[in-house]
């Protein structure tokens, strides 16, 4: 086995690298979305890859793989996502990008009634090597229609898988796994993580979809983080350590399937749990984790399960309101103190 060379890489570049390496490995992979290259059809005028994607996650791909495989689309999410699903059903692996997850409304049917159900309702007849790239998260002043974190909507639907990488390492590994999966996978990128860097292997690797990971060992309470909230949990854990509370931090990484067993194993050690989720609270992934842990591990709990989530409101615009909306380490610390009855 060759030694694994790692280097610091940003979340955005890790996504780009996973796409690039897998497209090189598998000549089938066809990518489509709005402005994923930019200046579509203008190569003859010298305009190529004008945007490289709205967040530059797909930059360079059209130059390496050409316009047959990297397809800018009109603003027709229902059509191009449905097209990507249909091509996958016909055996060509596809990746479609939904620019912001908030735009799900215009193409929801294709994901709900086709991508999620075709394998089951067709009795296993049809498989879908299909990945949807999309992005979530408040914090960039984009207000109510470009900021939401509604992965819980999709986690609710049988037949889909959904991953929520929290750093560059998990972004590359989970996207590589998605691009090799024969189930439809939604890859939720958090907009505030694009510039965050960590050590990432140069070569290709997969992280299993559905496995959570422990980021910090602890004995007193389990903090479960999802996407960007994992770093909030780690920050809170440091603050709690100063108060003598030794928190364990679990990074969920997948909103469907949810790694309940990993969470329950942690609770059997710590006997307490707070779930930190940027999504709105009603019928959320955090609510589901709380319910399942309550059902399966009640005897291991020494205190009520608590959640720190966004309020049940749209995402506001004004900076102070937006900051108040997003769960932060102070809210987590305060909630942990409540769990400990102080």
């Amino acid at each position: 086995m060759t030694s694994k060379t790692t280097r610091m890489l940003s979340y955005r570049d890790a996504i780009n690298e996973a796409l690039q390496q897998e497209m090189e490995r598998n000549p089938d992979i066809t990518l489509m979305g709005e402005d994923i290259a930019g200046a579509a059809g203008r190569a003859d005028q010298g305009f190529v890859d004008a945007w490289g994607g709205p967040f530059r996650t797909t930059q360079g791909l059209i130059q390496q793989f050409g316009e047959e495989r990297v397809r800018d689309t009109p603003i027709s999410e229902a059509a191009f996502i449905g097209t990507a699903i249909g091509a996958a059903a016909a055996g060509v692996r596809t990746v479609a990008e939904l620019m912001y997850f908030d735009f799900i409304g215009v193409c929801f049917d294709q994901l709900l009634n086709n991508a999620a159900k075709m394998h089951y309702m067709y009795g296993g007849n049809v498989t879908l090597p299909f990945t949807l790239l999309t992005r979530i998260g408040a914090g960039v002043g984009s207000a109510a229609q470009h900021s939401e974190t509604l992965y819980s909507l999709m986690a609710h639907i049988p037949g889909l898988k959904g991953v929520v990488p929290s750093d560059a390492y998990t972004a590359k590994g989970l996207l590589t796994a998605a691009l090799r999966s024969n189930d439809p996978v939604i890859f939720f990128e958090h907009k505030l993580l694009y510039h965050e860097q960590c050590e990432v292997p140069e070569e290709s690797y997969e992280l299993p979809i559905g496995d959570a990971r422990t980021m910090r060992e602890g004995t007193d309470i389990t903090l479960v983080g999802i996407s960007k909230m994992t770093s909030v949990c780690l920050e809170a854990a440091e603050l709690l350590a100063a108060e003598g509370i030794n928190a364990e931090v679990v990074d969920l990484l997948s909103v469907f399937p949810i790694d309940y067993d990993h969470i329950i194993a942690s609770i059997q050690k710590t006997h307490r749990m707070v779930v930190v989720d940027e999504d709105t609270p009603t019928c959320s992934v955090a609510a589901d984790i709380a319910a399942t842990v309550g059902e399966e591990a009640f005897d291991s709990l020494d205190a009520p399960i608590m959640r720190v989530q966004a309020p049940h409101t749209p995402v506001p615009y004004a900076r102070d309101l937006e900051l108040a909306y997003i769960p932060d380490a102070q809210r987590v610390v305060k909630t942990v103190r409540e769990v400990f009855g102080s």
Partner: protein
Amino acid sequence: MEITHEALLKMFETMVTIRQFELRAFAEVGQRSLRGAIHLSVGQEAVPTGICAHLTDDDYLASTHRGHGHCIAKGVDVQGMMAEILQKSTGTNKGKGGSMHIADISKGMLGANGVVGSSVPLAVGAALAAKRRSTDQVAIAFFGDGAVNQGVVHESMNLAAIWKLPVIFACENNHYAESTPVEYATPIANIAERAKGYNMPGVVVDGMDAFAVYDAAGTAIGRARAGLGPTLLECKTYRYYGHAAFDNPKSYRSTEEEDEWKARDAIMKFRERVLEEGTLSQAEMDETEAKVTEQMDEAVRFSDESPAPGLSELLTDVYVDAPKGSLGRSSHLFT
């Protein structure tokens, strides 16, 4: 267009099979008091027959809630279809889909779809797959007049046109979306006119005439295979029965109107024409009809002898790679 004797007999057999299959399946479901929607396409047989006569198993088709005819014309096994509708594990979909979702990827049949308009981009995707593989495969998107006001259908036509994909938008205009007449829902006389907006050919064809459909489809499919892009083919036709079993179409249309269409019945007209032209004999057609009836008997017998799906099937085929831990978690199943 010239049609070989063999192909002609096959077209007759396809139309007869569609009609017999649907009437038989409907009767068998009723006899067994099974629940489940069945949408009959009786009256519309010439459309899938004329189009699919140009296709091989390698070509693709995406279908609608009224899809039995599409499946049969594309070569899906009628035993599997009957068993599916009669809720057996030997059905095309293992009993998980029913009438509205029959699929058989080995025949290029990407599936019938219960959401109006929803399957249209899937056919566009199959056409994209063909383009990516540089084959001459084509994809047929079947949809009704009810789907032509769905946004996704328009978006799909636009996308297929700009990408010059080998797809045929086959609109079966049977003049009713449930109980809503097409002239109420659509402000133009011919749906095919909408092709202009996407710079593709729009062709109106008599959907009660298998020969006319065959000719128009041949041109459209030829264009698609040659890399010239999509065509919108509007086939004007009629469903003899209601939207579904509960629906009495007499509540929204006249007997006179029904009789006018039935006087142009596709199978009857086909039979008259081939006899007149001497291209098929009465004996050949009678023999074919008798053979199809036997196939239907056999399909029902096969279904009756087949087991119902095991309860464990509830949790299979949700994923190719099922997540660890049971999908029945928190469901307390089978207790």
